[in-house]
């Protein structure tokens, strides 16, 4: 006997629940539609019933929709999730998709385009647990690299379990940083590189394991860059290596992406030996490089005279921006941040410089 799929609707508005239930009951597959008016009740149902699709409101008291989706994605990774929002807010939309939501729909649009909405939910009901033919389940257009970046950008802690047929790989993420990986008998960075070579598969989030031994210390961006380069080289063995110009362009694009992602305004590097400088995000490279080199010299001289030990960094604050200067080997780096930035500028600058160098 064919079992009916179950849909759970979560909303604190009783009228909306009734309306939604009525609409989803008309789906061609005649799903069993359950309702809950708070997150606690919804979680209890999810524990006991085999729910295929969760339709959740975004704004609710106590636990809101995004928190609820986060919990569901972690505890019930096979459940498809639909978020309904009364507000047309791009930030909510992108945050929801970053959490792995399958569908984000405006409540007003749901009423106006009821047929389309029903088709979308029906399609989610129809998707089984099998691995897709291409891409990763739920995020067909995203590569594994995108998925890892999303996990790390959200600073989450979890274990990402990736399967490709009989192969199983695991990635341990703690506070947005990759700490360990296992894939095809390898562990650590080697495993991570092998995993990123996978083009298809399915993934799920498992609870974090904070006590897991760390085998990877590199920043996630450096790891991704190295793996991407390694994959490029292996996937195009017969093609000519990149011209110097192409390689330079690729590096520049990567660096700009890093800069934007971290929220920095500019980075200027200058060699302490020959004064050769380069920079991105500013047209004032020469002047900034000059100050960086002079400041590093002043600090070195002062440190020696005072016997204050090696220089860790110099932080500066102007009317419009803040700056952090770091010296690494024979290179000095000046990272500019918007004036209103306040948190962990040193850590963020160090991270940026580490990925910049790699």
């Amino acid at each position, binding site marked *: 006997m064919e079992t009916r799929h179950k849909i759970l609707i979560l909303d604190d508005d009783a009228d909306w629940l009734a309306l939604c239930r009525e609409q989803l009951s008309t789906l061609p597959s005649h799903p069993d539609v359950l309702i809950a008016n708070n997150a606690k009740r919804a979680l209890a149902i999810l524990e006991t019933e085999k729910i295929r699709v969760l339709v959740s409101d975004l704004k609710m008291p106590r636990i809101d929709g995004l928190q609820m989706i986060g919990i569901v994605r972690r505890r019930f990774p096979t459940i498809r999730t639909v978020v309904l929002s009364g507000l047309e807010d791009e930030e909510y939309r992108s945050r929801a998709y970053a959490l792995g939501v399958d569908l984000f729909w405006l409540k007003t649009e749901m009423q106006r385009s009821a047929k389309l909405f029903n088709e979308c939910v029906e399609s989610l009901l129809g998707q089984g647990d099998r691995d897709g033919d291409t891409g990763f389940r739920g995020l067909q257009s995203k590569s594994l690299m995108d998925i890892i970046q999303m996990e790390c950008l959200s600073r989450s802690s979890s274990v990402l379990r990736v399967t490709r047929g009989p192969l199983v790989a695991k990635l341990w993420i703690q506070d947005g940083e990759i700490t360990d990986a296992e894939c095809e008998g390898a562990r650590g960075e080697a495993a991570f590189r092998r995993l990123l070579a996978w083009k298809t598969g399915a993934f799920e989030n498992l609870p974090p394991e904070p006590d897991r031994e760390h085998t990877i210390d590199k920043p996630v961006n450096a790891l991704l860059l190295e793996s991407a380069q390694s994959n490029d080289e292996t996937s195009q063995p017969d093609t000519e290596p990149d011209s110097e110009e192409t390689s330079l362009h690729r590096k520049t694009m990567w660096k700009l992406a890093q800069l934007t992602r971290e929220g920095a305004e500019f980075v200027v590097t200058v060699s302490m030996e020959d004064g050769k400088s380069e920079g991105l995000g500013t047209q004032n490279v020469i002047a900034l490089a000059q100050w960086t080199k002079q*400041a590093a010299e*002043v600090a070195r001289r*002062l440190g020696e005279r005072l016997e*204050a030990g090696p220089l*860790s960094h110099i932080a*500066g*604050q102007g009317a419009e921006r803040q*700056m952090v200067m770091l010296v690494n080997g024979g290179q000095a780096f000046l990272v500019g941040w918007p004036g209103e930035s306040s948190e962990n500028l040193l850590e963020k600058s160090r991270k940026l410089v580490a990925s910049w160098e790699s």
Partner: protein
Amino acid sequence: MGILKRIFGGDAAVQQLPAGTVTVDRHGQIVTSTVSSTFPEPLLLAIARDVLDLFRLARADQMPLAEVSLHFSSLRITARELRGGAIIFLFPQTAVSSIPTPARQ
């Protein structure tokens, strides 16, 4: 006894790190200071000169700074620009020391 002194000399000493606040005018002259008087004044003047240099160089390079902080492994120097001069805070750093931050105005 005293063999090491005879070999290495008796005046070898670890430099004391300065702690306190110094205000300097635009010419690098010390106006007020709460740093111990046992700390050599030439060194204090050197700090003042270098800090003013950092502000001056930044101004010359079209990026005026209101505050600059030099973080060494055992000393932190935080300076705020003060109408051409500066107020300089000197914080020795130890493994157990907290990192005090001068209150913002």
